[in-house]
């Protein structure tokens, strides 16, 4: 079976200037990968390169068997909630329906199957009772869950999440983690960025340590070690509790 995501010696960046280099990844269907690194390490840039929004400057990259640019629109994406316009008059249900647009087409009306998929996705993240609420009135964690439901409704084979646990309360964290485990069990490949090492250890099959370049990749037990973390984060000292 094809890899969901394969990067060989990839550099990514803006305007010809690399932000992140030496990236080697191989992610199969149903596997989850955590991108771990400090702020500004290039985690979001790497995610956007997979989405085809940031160019690959070197190396070979394959997303769902094709180039990232050709795969644009195929991979699911859960952005950080603060990049969205919270004043927009859209309900949680409408936001999740956005995930069905590719399936429905941009112009055709939604069918019963789409409405059912939306209801199921909201149920999977535990927000079935909030479907009619305006997105901007929900808490940060609930907004994150709505965005995850939107991605689930699109039924992607590869899903990328940018800091899905940032500013999220315990209830939402549990709901998101549960939904992500269901996704991988169903064969979806996951990439999530985080600076929370506990999240990486609990949820990911593979951890990729980045900070300007890739420092390590492998199972959490092999990568989330004090020595490897110190190497990636620099000599400023790493205080970790694993």
């Amino acid at each position: 079976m094809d890899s969901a995501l394969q990067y060989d010696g990839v550099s990514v960046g803006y305007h010809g200037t690399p932000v992140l280099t030496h990236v080697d990844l191989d992610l199969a269907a149903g596997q989850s990968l955590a991108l771990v690194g400090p702020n500004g390490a290039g985690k979001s840039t790497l995610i956007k390169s997979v989405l085809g929004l940031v160019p690959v400057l070197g190396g070979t990259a394959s997303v769902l068997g094709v180039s990232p640019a050709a795969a644009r629109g195929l991979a699911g994406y859960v952005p950080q909630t603060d990049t969205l316009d919270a004043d927009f008059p859209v309900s949680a249900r409408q936001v999740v329906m956005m995930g069905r647009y590719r399936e429905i087409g941009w112009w055709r009306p939604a069918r019963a199957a789409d409405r059912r998929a939306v209801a199921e996705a909201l149920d999977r993240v535990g927000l079935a009772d909030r479907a009619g609420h305006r997105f901007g009135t929900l808490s940060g964690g609930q907004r994150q869950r709505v965005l995850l439901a939107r991605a689930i409704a699109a039924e992607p084979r590869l899903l990328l999440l940018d800091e899905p646990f940032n500013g999220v309360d315990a209830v939402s964290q549990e709901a998101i983690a549960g939904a992500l485990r269901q996704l991988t069990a169903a064969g979806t490949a996951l990439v999530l960025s985080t600076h929370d090492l506990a999240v990486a250890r609990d949820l990911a099959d593979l951890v990729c340590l980045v900070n300007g370049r890739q420092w390590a990749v492998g199972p959490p037990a092999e990568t989330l070690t004090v020595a490897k973390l110190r190497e990636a984060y620099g000599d400023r000292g790493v205080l970790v509790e694993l």
Partner: protein
Amino acid sequence: MSWWDDALHRATVEVILAGALGGLVGVQVVLRRLSFFTMALTHATFPGVVAASIIGVNLLIGGAVAGGIIALGVAALSRRRGQDAAAATGVLLSAGFALGAGLVATQSGFSRDLSSFLVGSILTVSTTDLATTAVVLAVVATVLLVCARPLLLVGFDRTGAQAAGLRTGAWDIVLLLTIEIVVVTVVPAVGTILALSLIVAPAAAARLWSDRLPVITAMAVVFGVGSGLVGLWVSSHWNVAAGASISLIATAVLAVSWLSSRLRWLPTQLRRIPASAAPAVPGRSDGGSSAAARPAVVTQ
């Protein structure tokens, strides 16, 4: 004598069409916070209309060309990093107005027409103007309906839209040009400078009444048409300039909507303070749900 030969009849139909047009596109302007951009468009349209009048071509074409250049210019500016798009828009705004005023000054005996470009001249609209407004209304309504999903996604979640494969820059241009066409079309009714009030005020007022896009859109159209009709009635009864009275009525609708939203908001805030917890902790409410009670504030 046909029904259309009466200037007041034509004016009535024109305010209905222009009000609907302003309300419809105004929802996009308000949601995307493009009020200031629209302000610049109205001012940039002014020299185009004046130039068209001097050369002797259709005023709409002159306004559309001038405004189109500004629309594309702003779209290009906002894509460049490090550029202060608001500052550039502001400069374009006053430069456009200055250019129009300069053009007017070159023509002797032109100043009487100046006010009709600035604040409209609804009682002189022709049946051709009416037909143009009707066609533009049909086209704009169709564009907004057909492009509703891409415009919604681009406005709400720009990165998500890009990730879904949308060309957000192209959709921005579709929206900016749609706004521009509306601005130019409502010039005979309310003039270049007052067009803003017929576009922004009804939609901003509607936004204060509802959180649902279809309801907001319907209310914006009703407010736009209502402002036009009431403004025209006030104008014909008290001999006030029609463009000015339409703008003032639209502004009044917004003011009343805002006051009403504050009055609806106040009791929910008071209810929030439990009787048992007498000294309420200032600035601290129950997390995320506090946003629910806050009325949406429309800013630029």
